[in-house]
């Protein structure tokens, strides 16, 4: 048998095995997961809205109240992570607890807690953004692009 046909046979075997894996592997219950994400994610957003309304009622401008709401939600996400509750929430809610700003706080605080044992410089300092880093980087990239677009449309 030539090496080529051996390789081809291996490839076919791998493809057949992959099909078998797809068959046997349990599927995530997407509908149920979506419902949980909607409920918990929705509750987090409702809480954010209540906090925003509270600051507005205190006489803050929309801009200030928005910033204060973000700060409050980040604090809550960090607090729940520190208490060891946010990861339990995440098991059920999935994207529902990752997407809101509380999830971003969770990613940063969880990393800080985990790597604190390696010290403040090489542990916390070097690895605090190990999960949140991609969000930050591509958030900055998006901001630069949008800034450029805005600048160009102003020149028009």
């Amino acid at each position, binding site marked *: 048998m030539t090496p080529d046909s051996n390789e081809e046979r291996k490839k076919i075997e791998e493809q057949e095995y992959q099909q*078998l894996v797809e068959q*046997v592997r349990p599927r995530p219950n997407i509908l149920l997961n979506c419902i949980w994400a909607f409920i918990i994610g929705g509750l987090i957003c409702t809480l954010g809205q209540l906090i925003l309304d509270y600051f507005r009622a205190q006489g803050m401008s929309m801009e200030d109240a928005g910033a204060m709401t973000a700060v409050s939600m980040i604090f809550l996400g960090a607090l729940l992570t520190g208490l060891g509750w946010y990861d339990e929430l995440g098991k059920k809610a999935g994207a529902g607890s990752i997407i809101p700003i509380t999830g971003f706080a969770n990613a940063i605080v969880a990393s800080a807690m985990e790597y604190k044992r390696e010290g403040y410089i090489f542990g916390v300092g070097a690895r605090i953004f190990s*999960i949140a880093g991609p969000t930050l980087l591509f958030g900055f990239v998006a901001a630069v692009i949008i800034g450029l677009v805005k600048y160009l449309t102003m020149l028009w």
Partner: protein
Amino acid sequence: MLSGKKRGLQSIEFLQAPIISSSASVAGPLESKSSWAEDFDWIMEDYLLGESSWERTETKVLQQVIQIALDKQQLSFEDIEVFLAGDLLDQIISSNYTARELKTPFLGLYGACSTMAEAILIGAMLVEGGFFTRLVAAAGSHHYTAERQFRFPTEQGVQPAPYSQWTATAAGALVLEAQGNGPRVSSITIGRIVDMNQKDANNLGAAMAPAAADTIHRHFLDLNRDSDYYDLVVTGDLGLVGQDLLEELFVQQGVVPKPNISDCGVLLYDGIPEVNAGGSGCGCSACMLCGPLLKKMYRGDLQRLLFVATGALMSPTSTNQGESIPGIAHAVAIEI
């Protein structure tokens, strides 16, 4: 010169089979909820045990399980001629730090979840070859050391896939001797890497199942046995998905060890709903073998056991670089 002990391509049949004179197992808080709880020698009350890091706890547990195995035979560290051990962490630190306390000659091993079988088969060859008369083989893992090394920080809120396995917080150790009372390691089959191009780090059972099928098939061919020879063939930690895949592969290959085949990762988490698809981690198969399974053998409920620990040799670096996950399985036959 032929040794006269090698059988077929990958197997060895011992003439003076080494004895497992003692064994011990430790299980974590979650694992203690399993129906095997009575068969574990020690159950951890929490995940830290007063230590300052998960890694230190893993080392402490490994030391403890060896101590218990030795205590059962009134042995001390000085009585051990060689210590063979491995774990899942980079540079196998838990085993290294355990060996630092033992102060005996040490061989560190890495075979991912197959480590316990690797330690037993190397240990059995060292004893039967007449090089040493008494040694310890051990392996352990900790859920949170593995989580943070291979996946996410432990407090990160992520949703596990329904087919992902739970790294066991558990450890097992056994004493191998040239003479004594207990079950014998009668033959072994050294596995080869089988890689079916699986790349999903959440589905390690799928990466390991072909290796398990290969090694079991080889074992039966090399030693001219069929599955009826064993009371139980138990794979390492394939989990529920891997176990189903193994059955399918057996059907394809025409091997039928069906009646008495099971899996340590499935057995250990039997009746624990928090775990989706069974356990993994080298402590899982080590703890199941050195606890419930060997106790069954000491009691005489099991006569012939084929222990096939499977390892997914996964590295986050190579997985991120697009490499597939190599699988391996080693077989150890234990008989009364």
